[in-house]
């Protein structure tokens, strides 16, 4: 078990390292150095910086030095929590991002919970009642969820929602609460707006998980230990839930690891369509405006949070699988 744990930790560390490198590359991709762009933008938007300030920035980021020095300087700043200033907003990046990051996390986690809550029973039902009418209905819905890209679904729902029901499904807060400080009322408001984006996000994920659960459970249902359990006199429902479902849970649980990045990606896109105050629209705007410090910070934070989340889920998996705990799994 210890080796498994160490291996996952090592992999996570390497992944975070790789993310920092990729983020650094993205930071420097646009032509020219970003301090000049910053200076140009700043003067254009009226918050001009002096030449001395610009030079100080260049020194801080080591822009006149070799690439690996730049990387190191940038990394050191990031480790201290200093992500730089956004050009567009003229404020520190962390301030601009503000709540959005946590809302993104909330949205993604919420979608994962809903996906699991839906996929598990539907998957079990589809496997046990194979070829029934319900199975076909769920399979069809599943295919639809798989086929329609997130943003299209959001677009269609948004359109028909306003057309047929006159409600606006966009946004995570109503107009009054949008800028208000955090109160209980604001939290309730948030909860009321969350269901639609979470449902849209979970549809694609649910479709995938249902297929996985169904396939694995169908495999397990044929195995001898199920017959043995039945032969003991156990109720059919208990037979299914206690034994093959438990066995099929493993490959099912191992999918969480890839569900989180999937959800985070998806949330970025539908946030744009539905105008949600999460990290998505901010990232898009910053990329279009070439506000690289803001953009790369968002990418970095999203990546790191995802890796941490995946690591936690791996630990969970390790805890529930006796084979890993006792060192049987290779």
């Amino acid at each position, binding site marked *: 078990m210890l080796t498994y744990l160490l291996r996952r930790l090592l992999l996570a560390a390497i992944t975070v390292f790789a993310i920092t490198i990729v983020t650094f590359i993205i930071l420097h991709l646009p032509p020219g150095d970003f301090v000049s762009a910053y200076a140009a933008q700043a003067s254009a938007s009226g918050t001009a910086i002096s030449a001395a300030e610009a030079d100080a920035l260049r020194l801080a980021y080591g822009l006149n030095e070799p690439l690996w020095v730049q990387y190191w300087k940038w990394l050191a700043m990031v480790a201290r929590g200093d992500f730089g200033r956004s050009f567009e907003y003229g404020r520190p990046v962390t301030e601009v991002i503000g709540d959005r990051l946590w809302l993104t996390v909330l949205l993604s986690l919420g979608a994962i919970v809903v996906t699991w809550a839906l996929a598990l029973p539907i998957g079990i039902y589809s496997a046990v009642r194979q070829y029934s009418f319900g199975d076909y209905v769920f399979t069809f819905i599943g295919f639809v969820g798989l086929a329609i890209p997130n943003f299209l679904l959001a677009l269609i729902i948004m359109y028909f929602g306003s057309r047929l029901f006159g409600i606006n499904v966009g946004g995570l807060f109503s107009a009054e609460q949008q800028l208000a400080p955090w109160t209980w009322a604001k939290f309730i408001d948030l909860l009321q707006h969350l269901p639609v984006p979470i449902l849209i996000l979970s549809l694609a994920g649910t479709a995938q998980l249902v297929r996985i659960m169904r396939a694995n459970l169908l495999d397990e249902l044929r195995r001898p230990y199920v017959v043995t359990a039945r*032969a003991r*006199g156990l109720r059919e429902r208990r037979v299914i839930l206690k034994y093959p479902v438990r066995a099929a849970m493993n490959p099912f649980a191992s999918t969480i690891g890839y569900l989180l990045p999937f959800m985070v990606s998806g949330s970025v896109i539908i946030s744009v369509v539905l105008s949600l105050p999460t990290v998505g629209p901010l990232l898009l705007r910053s990329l279009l405006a070439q506000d690289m410090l803001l953009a790369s910070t968002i990418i970095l934070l999203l990546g790191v949070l995802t890796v941490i989340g995946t690591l936690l889920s791996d630990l969970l998996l390790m805890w529930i699988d006796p084979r890993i705990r006792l060192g049987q799994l290779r």
Partner: protein
Amino acid sequence: MAEPILSVRDLHTHFFPNEGVVRAVDGTSFDLFPGRTLGIVGESGCGKSVTARSILRIVERPGRIVSGEIILRRADGRTVDLVKLASDGAEMRAIRGGEIGLVFQEPMSSLSAFHTVGNQLIEAIRLHSTLSKRAARTRAIELLALVGIPRPAQRVDAYSFELSGGLRQRVMIALALAAEPRILIADEPTTALDVTTQAQILELIRRLQQERGLAVILITHDMGVIAEMTDDVVVMYLGHEVEKGPVDAIFHAPRHPYTRALLRSIPSVLAAPLSRLATIAGSIPHPYARPPGCPFHPRCPDAIGGVCERSFPLEVAIGERHDVACHLYTAGAEAVA
């Protein structure tokens, strides 16, 4: 002879997949007596396992029992027809495990990998008794000791993958006996084990039978096991029993051509070197392409032309408790030796 503890009468279990009908068990009848071992023998696909599952009413879709009776005589003398019970009903579930125990052939995959041995044993015990968890755990440890597992108090918390094949099969037997059934059905219990372990397991089954007065149904394709372990034998072919009787009669005076062919095909240590191994001509027909009349006639060296391919032979008695289903005997004709 005492009353049979289990009587199977004209059992028909058919499977209905999309492609057609498979008549897995097509008219089998036999009796099982307390304290005696009944062997069911035949080639793969002859319906032996399906018979066992039919008795326990755990035949899987797309199969089901189409007709027949399975009459169980309970401890108080009352009888119940298992076919008439609801398969997931309380009464049938009480009988499953409580009156009839099943041991399978695949010890490797017959136990859940995610639950300890003790968990599964305790579940089986508590399903058919009112013992508390702690009492059930003690009982589980006793059972493990009974089937010869060393250090049972530790092994009760082991997972199945921590045990060897032989130990796992012993656990399976313990599971089958956990609720003190009066009948034990062992479906090829030793096929997946090596020869030494085979002997040990068979010895264990025999000992348990003697200690508890179990009635045992032993299903196998191995004639050697039949000779060693059973008192009565049922020979099956394509879902029918073709011959049944006491083991001595079957071995020393086999009547049905199939039984004879089976016995002949056992390689003998006394055979002359380089002599050909005897085989049964042809192969088992495809389930959707059953021969008309007697199912064995295409491979039968003694088939009577014009009779065997037309009509199905009825079972007749040719000796004490010795029945055979073959046209060679239905008209009272003497056996062609």
